[in-house]
């Protein structure tokens, strides 16, 4: 298990958005690709951020929402939709996670699994030594690989 690297399970997919792409375009992209998030890159394909469904949802909620235990206390449930419409033409850079956590193909799977557990990442951009995007690694790929290995250990 320790020998397993990101390169063994990464998806060589270069789906990305630019910082000035709009929220609406990103929501559209996530819908069409069924991805939960995408890397944000600059004009040299260097990863400068990451935008996820969670980031967009958070951007539509009032700033005090994180202090509340439940959405039942929101003054108006239509507020979320109104806010989403309001930000739909904003550049995504405003809501992307920066700096972004990335991994290299040579990083171990155990390291990735550890970060998924600790930080709750769903998708992590994979970059080369120049921070250029070369793929993604998703938590499902990690789970699938671990399940496979576990079965082999148990001789099933």
């Amino acid at each position, binding site marked *: 298990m320790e020998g397993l690297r990101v390169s063994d399970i990464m998806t060589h997919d*270069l*789906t990305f958005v630019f910082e000035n792409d709009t929220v609406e375009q990103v929501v559209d*992209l996530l819908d069409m690709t069924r991805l939960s998030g995408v890397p944000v890159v600059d004009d040299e394909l260097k990863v400068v951020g990451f935008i996820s469904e969670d980031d967009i949802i958070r951007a539509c909620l009032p700033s005090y929402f994180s202090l509340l235990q439940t959405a039942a206390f929101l003054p108006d449930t239509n507020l979320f939709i109104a806010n989403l419409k309001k930000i739909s033409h904003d550049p995504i850079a405003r809501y992307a996670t920066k700096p972004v956590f990335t991994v290299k193909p040579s990083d171990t799977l155990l390291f990735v699994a550890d970060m998924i557990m600790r930080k709750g990442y769903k998708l992590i951009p994979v970059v080369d030594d120049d921070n250029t995007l070369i793929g993604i690694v998703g938590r499902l790929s990690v789970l699938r690989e671990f399940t496979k290995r576990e079965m082999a250990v148990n001789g099933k």
Partner: protein
Amino acid sequence: MKVLAVCLNPALDREFVIDHFTLNKLSVVRNENNHMSPGGKGVNVAVILAKYGISSVVSGFVGGYVGHMLISELRKIGPLISTSFVNIRDDTRENIAIEDTVNHTLTEINSEGPFINQDSIDIFLRRFEVLVQKVQIVVISGSVPKGVDYSIYGELTKIAKRYSKTVFWEARDEVINASMKVALPDVIKYDMRQSENILGKSLSNEEEYISAARDFIKNGAKLVILSYKTIYNFVGTADGVWKFSPKVEIDHSRLLGSGDTFVAGMILAQLDGKCCLDMARYGYAAAVAKTAYMGKEPPSRIQIGEYTNNILSERVD
């Protein structure tokens, strides 16, 4: 990534072998007689290059469930192929072929393909400019989907040339004709499967082909390849025009995929440092070697090397 393979209109190819195929009757197809593979000329070139250990990124437009299936099949090829498609709402086209090996019939059902709107074209052009900087060679090959202007090959080449990349085209006459007005690639290979027109004119004899090859070079192309009577090629370079012929008998039923192998062979030669005529010779040898057997697998580099002795290139101008 060494190569950016542009396939604007990729397809999911589905092949069913159904002996005694009959209309108005249910046919149950065994799993081994039901094959699914990623298709479209640019995709095919990337798949062939991966077999030779060359990495590429494939770009174009994909959409819907068929688009997801196409990408999923492409990923099965292995880590040498990266994907960077622009997603659209319309479905990617699907080409269904039903082969009856008893009655020797082939029934084909091809979907029309998606419509690409201007927003998606703009997104693609911007992504292309980012991706092109990361590769050595750009190959643009195959049909142009609805909504996209035929001059798109020229627009992409203009961008690629800003970064001094080597550009290969394989396309039909209407695409080459419109795109040449915008920018010229290093290599033009005509896709003449559906028409023998070159620059809007129907050519019939060898003299006309030689003259057309000469005109392309005069207009600035470094290498032009015009397929003639399916198995021959007229090849134009700055030094002259050559006619390529096979020294071996060609089985026409094995020609499928040889055009893409030709392009992949030329890219291999270019990466090996070969130029112009030698590059075309290597590509032609690869294409002829591909016709020596059935199946989709490209010939090995050893086979291509052997087949360089099985082709004839004679100077005709």
